[in-house]
């Protein structure tokens, strides 16, 4: 019985074992792995996935799924870059609106929030399965990105904007700060607020939650909106790091982030899981990607090894935590 109380801890602990074994193995073979610079390197690389996966965790906790994160990321990145570079021009009205960096970023994040809220609206209003609603959004947002960029990257956004993706603040890379803050806020949201409690409740038992007076639609729309906003933040980081918004950025990011969520112990049927578990999941994936490169594994083999390690990590998890 008592063990059960610590189950959330236990789950994290399981992934920690997998992570530990992984790090040990890699550092046995490569002396470049356990260095400070490589550590920051990995952290910076996973910061985008962490942002997206945090939003995905919230969605999955409500027993939903968000396949649109990758293309929302691309669209919002492109939008911010476009506004930053070209502003908004209305030639007919002879009107031109220029954007500051903060302004353009704000519009990008708002756009992500809106797209996410649209997902939530379609899901709750029309009872469309989340899989389909967000799959449709995946396609639509990618199309809109192509339309907006006309298929060309938007580049040359300036050094100030590049700070977001490449700068350092207090000896820590800025993207790591951003993802750290996102994680912190999400941990507070899930453990200390009413909304967080409702998210778990809805995923655990939707009809009981409805009877308890929870406004299911509102909570779901908020959750998808958060997921969209975090995808947009991810888009800003990617765009800033590359100093360029790529029209096909973020493709198949949804799979990476769902993998992080599930490796982190969150159940796809909702109601069970933690943000910190997801962070661990994202770190495992990041370390794996980094390690395979450091170990000089051939690119063809990398995919095989990556698949096998992810499978093993989850198996270790499952077989140690015994019952469900």
């Amino acid at each position: 019985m008592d063990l059960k109380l610590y189950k959330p801890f236990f789950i994290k602990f399981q992934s920690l074992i997998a992570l530990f074994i992984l790090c040990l193995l890699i550092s046995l073979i490569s002396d470049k792995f356990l260095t400070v610079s490589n550590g920051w390197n990995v952290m910076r690389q996973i910061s985008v996935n962490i942002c997206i996966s945090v939003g995905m965790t919230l969605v999955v906790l409500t027993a939903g799924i968000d396949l649109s994160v990758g293309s929302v990321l691309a669209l919002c990145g492109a939008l911010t870059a476009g506004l930053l570079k070209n502003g908004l021009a209305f030639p007919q009205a002879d009107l031109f609106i220029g954007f500051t960096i903060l302004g353009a970023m704000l519009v990008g994040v708002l756009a992500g929030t809106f797209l996410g809220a649209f997902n939530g609206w379609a899901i709750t209003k029309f009872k469309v399965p989340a899989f389909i609603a967000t799959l449709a959004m995946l396609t639509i947002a990618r199309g809109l990105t192509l339309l907006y960029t006309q298929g060309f990257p938007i580049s040359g956004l300036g050094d100030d904007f590049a700070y977001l993706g490449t700068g350092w603040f207090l000896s820590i890379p800025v993207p790591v700060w951003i993802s750290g803050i996102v994680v912190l806020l999400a941990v507070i949201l899930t453990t200390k607020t009413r909304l967080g409690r409702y998210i778990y409740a809805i995923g655990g038992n939707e009809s009981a939650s409805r009877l308890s007076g929870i406004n299911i639609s509102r909570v779901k729309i908020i959750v998808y909106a958060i997921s969209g906003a975090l995808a947009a933040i991810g888009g800003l980081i990617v765009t800033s790091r590359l100093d360029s918004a790529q029209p096909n950025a973020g493709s198949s990011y949804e799979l990476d982030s769902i993998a992080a969520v599930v490796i982190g112990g969150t159940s796809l049927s909702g109601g069970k899981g933690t943000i910190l578990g997801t962070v661990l999941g994202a770190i495992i994936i990041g370390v794996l990607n980094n390690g395979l490169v450091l170990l000089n594994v051939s690119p063809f083999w990398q995919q095989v090894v990556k698949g096998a390690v992810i499978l093993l990590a989850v198996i270790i998890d499952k077989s140690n935590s015994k019952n469900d």
Partner: protein
Amino acid sequence: KPTAEEPKKIAVIVSTLNNPWFVVLAETAAAKARALGYEAKIFDSQNNTALEADHFENAISSGFNAILFNPTDADGSIANVSKAKAADVPVFCMDREVNSNKSATSQILSDSYSGCIALGKYFVKKLNKKGKYVEILGLVGDNNTWARSKGFHSVVDHYPGLKMVAQQSADFDRNKAMEVLESILQANPDIDAVFCGNDAMAMGAYQALYAAGKANHVQVFGFDGADDVLNSIKEGKIKATGMQYPKVMAETAALYAQEYFNGKRNFPQKVPVAVELVTPENIKNYSAN
């Protein structure tokens, strides 16, 4: 810091390995580097600029001494190359350029735009300045797609007799090209030519035409110089392609890296490697391997 005995390490960062053309480019570069006595390692960016950035960081932090680079995107990759430059790691671009004259040590480039101008001229000639044609684009978010399309149109659009009846994307994919052309043929059974953004799509287009019994009336044009297409040109199935020289570019880049290690610093910023037009007339000069 690597000691004198330890061999220098060269990273080959390539935009994708999902396409044989880039496999050749990457493997030739790595093989040449090894032949010159260096350690070499291939990184696959999977057409993802962000992943490419990761590769640069990993390569720099794990002590690679030079990077032979096939950029994912001309603009999106500048930041990465600059990062390497800041870390004193020389970058030699292969095939595709980065839009900056200051970042890469040298760029050995295949000129898709001019290649497609030549191809466009041949296209006009073969169609006698008159007819309906279809253009099949690559990935619409990819700048190579547009370099080729623009080069082609910069010639062909001057001829009012040549009418583009459909322009669709097939993501550089053979199967998609076939399916897209199958559908286009339903709406436009009377086309005279198909211009494809790469050779895989040209093969797919040919397959669709063949299945529809139109392979003899419709001329197919590709780009890349892939083995399949070279054979097809020999057999008269495909009209022409633009031959790029991945091996030449890859080997040149590796040699430049060696010269750099030996102390040379003044490399030409751009070394163009011409794209040659391959047609039934000159196909005997090109052997598929």
